[in-house]
């Protein structure tokens, strides 16, 4: 690196240090963009389109022309407990992104932006009682926006470096309620409220490096940071109880949701022959840092008895004991991703591709033999994709048009959970299911 060319390095450094990086929960199991998903998510060393914002931002520096992509993904989550549907919401989202390459003082440089925008919500934080059975890794964590911006440089043709940030939002709210509660006719209560709420930004980093060992072989390392969404809610209620007494009721609930553990990906891509490429990624996921998604609820009640005592039929509440949150004890995992791409058609203006992929997610959750019921199972994901690329069809069209589609079937074999306490309120149960992931992506290169 020569000092007379500091700008790209400064920009890249700024992106690595100052910006949050991109990658969100739904992208872990379901991929980003049809090409990467069809190849089992094995793309760290073989990506240069908008999906590089997730798989490896260093790949952005491989782009040679500006490219805008847009697509859609639909994942139906057919998950069951004891043979009954768990009602896990589908994941339906628009995906989009841009890769804007260029040169700064002679050095290839690129900016990338990636978006996974769910149809129904940007994010959802949901804290259930810890004994309530739920598909911990599929029920709520995939209902999340992914928004990322990255920068990448290629100081030498064999080296690409990239990084950036992604951000989501946590909630910190204090609600103050005052007035009169009418315990005889609650709708006639006279209450009003004030709000002090912040949706705070949560930023998390991502960085990647890609090294081309030969024209046909490349290696990559990607780091993805950890994040969590907090939901901290405080409600203070000062109210007159039907003229009987004055109550002070303080409720504080703090919960952590959508925890995304830090990850390290080591990947390789080998072009076996000009028409055939094979990729392998290994992802270490730091699940052992997972925070239980259970609300820590603190309730304070101060209700002095009325001078004449409580009327018949009204029992004043007492301060309940606080929640005791059981540890979740997840284990770190290594997730293998395998992918292959065959260029089946290679005409002057049209190319066609067939892609296959597989990944195996071993469940990081221990057997739920105690009071908690975080349901999960190992996941085998098989994927298939087709792609077509058309080049310079008409001057009014983008120079390079690509349409990719994918289908991914994830099988979660049915497992049985046996409780150590025969009197457990939930009892033994079986859980398993399938996930169908279908999507298309249109990329326009200019």
């Amino acid at each position, binding site marked *: 690196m020569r000092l007379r060319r500091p700008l790209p390095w400064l920009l890249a450094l700024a992106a690595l240090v100052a910006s949050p990086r991109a990658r969100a929960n739904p992208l872990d199991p379901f991929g980003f963009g049809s090409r990467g998903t069809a190849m089992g998510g094995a793309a760290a060393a073989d990506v240069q389109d908008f999906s590089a914002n997730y798989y490896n931002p260093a790949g952005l520096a491989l782009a040679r022309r500006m490219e805008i992509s847009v697509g859609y993904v639909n994942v139906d989550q057919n998950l069951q407990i004891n043979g009954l549907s768990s009602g896990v919401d589908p994941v339906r989202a628009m995906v989009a992104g841009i890769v804007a390459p260029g040169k700064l003082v002679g050095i290839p440089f690129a900016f990338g932006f990636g978006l996974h925008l769910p149809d129904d919500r940007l994010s959802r934080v949901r804290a259930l009682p810890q004994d309530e059975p739920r598909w911990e890794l599929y029920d709520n964590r995939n209902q999340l926006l992914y928004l990322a911006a990255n920068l990448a440089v290629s100081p030498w043709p064999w080296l690409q470096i990239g990084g950036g940030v992604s951000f989501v939002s946590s909630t910190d709210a204090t*609600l103050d309620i005052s007035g009169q509660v009418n315990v005889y006719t609650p709708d006639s209560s006279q209450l009003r409220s004030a709000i002090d709420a912040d949706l705070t930004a949560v930023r998390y980093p991502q960085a990647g490096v890609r090294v081309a060992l030969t024209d046909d072989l490349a290696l990559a390392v990607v780091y993805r940071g950890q994040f969590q969404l907090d939901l901290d809610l405080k409600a203070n209620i000062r109210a007159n109880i039907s003229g009987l007494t004055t109550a002070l*009721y303080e409720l504080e609930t703090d919960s952590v949701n959508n925890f995304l553990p830090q990850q390290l990906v080591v990947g390789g891509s080998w072009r076996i022959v000009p028409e055939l490429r094979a990729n392998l990624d290994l992802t270490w996921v730091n699940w052992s840092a997972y925070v239980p998604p259970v609300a820590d609820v603190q309730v304070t009640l101060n209700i002095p008895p009325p001078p004449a005592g409580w009327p018949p039929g009204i029992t004043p509440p007492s301060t309940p004991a606080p929640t005791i949150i059981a540890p979740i004890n997840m284990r770190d995992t290594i997730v293998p991703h395998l992918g292959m791409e065959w260029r089946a058609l290679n005409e002057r203006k049209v190319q066609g591709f067939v892609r296959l992929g597989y990944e195996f997610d071993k469940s990081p959750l221990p057997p739920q033999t105690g009071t908690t019921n975080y349901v999960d199972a190992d996941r085998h994901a098989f994927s298939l994709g087709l792609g077509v690329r058309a080049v310079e069809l008409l001057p009014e069209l983008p120079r390079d048009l690509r349409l990719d589609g994918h289908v991914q079937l994830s099988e979660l074999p049915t497992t049985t959970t046996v409780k150590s306490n025969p009197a457990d309120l939930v009892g033994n149960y079986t859980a398993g299911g399938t996930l169908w992931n279908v999507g298309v992506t249109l990329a326009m290169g200019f």
Partner: protein
Amino acid sequence: MLALSMQKRLTFAALLVAVTTGGAASASPEDIFGYGTRSPAMGGTGVAHSEGFEAAYTNPALLGRIRDLKLTLGFEAATFNLHADGAGLPGEVPYDSMRGIIIGLDVPIPLGGVLKDRIGTALALSSPTNVIVRGNIPYPEAPQFPLLPDRSQTVSIRAGIGVNVGWGIRVGAGFAALAELDGSAVVQTDATGRVSSNVQDQLIATYAPTLGLTYDVPLEDHETTRIGVSYRGALAANFDVSIDATKLSSLNIPVLTIAGLAQYDPEQVSFEIARSQGAFLFALGATYKRWSAYPGLLQSTLPCPASDPTCGSLVPPSITYKDTFVPRVGVEYSTSAGKSLDLHVRAGALYEPSALPSKLASSMAFDMTSQATVSLPTRYFDADRLAITLGYGVALRDPLPPITLDLFGQAHALMPRTITSDDSVGKVSGTVFAAGLLAGVKF
């Protein structure tokens, strides 16, 4: 001749008075300070002359002029020194300063044939450094400036596309996005007597459209005169959380709804004419803001059931906000200092009338001592603002790296004003200072 000149001046003055006394208010960061650096330095003008990603806000039709891929990063900040003086009032009403980052991306769409050099797009993000959206809605009797400081504490995501259709006409469309919150908390005791809860909140995207049109007037003096019109839809971020503690005891208490409007930008239409003459660019415009549609900050904590619409629940004060006209003027002087360096000096002014009426309805509360409903003064404050803006820009050209550096500064003065509610009289004054610095690179 002199009489005619005086008559013109009086007519102009009357028009100026007419457009500046409509009422006033301010909105999210771009509505208060403008977007980017060039427009804020020129009095918030730009509907007819914006360049680059700023046009995603001012007028997306101008995105059709983008020819270079450009990334812009920057920082902006604002401080608020707001006063409400009078009996029972604190004098200075403290507010946090606003600090935010700005990211803009100019993206030309390089198609060929008849579409060559006709389409451009932009993405833009401005965000406070510490929050996405702030919803601070105190009780109405607490002194506050509801239309100014906290409304600047919100993220703004904008995107747009502009097309040059020929004959001097450009059209464009885009949108602004914001997040609103919808949540619930159900608190109960479990079988062991311990408290447990089911808490959920969702961030839901809310969008507002932006439409624009410009026309390059064909004149014979070889200078450029452009007319621009843009429309921005209302952008509202709601806050809605319900708390259900009915299962915590046998005490028969209602489900509580805490709902309000955390952020609101009114629907608005802007018109502007800009003329470049030699090294100068002049812009004159106005923005109509439909504040009369503003529903207010808070909703009832206990909405009356449909079967009993007059259930006696406490309702927030009813305030009829006024539509406003904001006149703006801006000027830019450009010169070259050598083959590879362009310099720009900018200045402008705007006058933002207040949308808040001078006499406010009182608010209702339940008094614990008398155990009765009482009326309290509504202590909302706001005032017309006169802003003077300045800016400076540097652009490097080949053989130097294609970098731009722009900064702006704004000084807003709140015009002295008296607002009354019940027997409370508040005299409003204050200042707002804002500044920003953006660096861009073409690649």
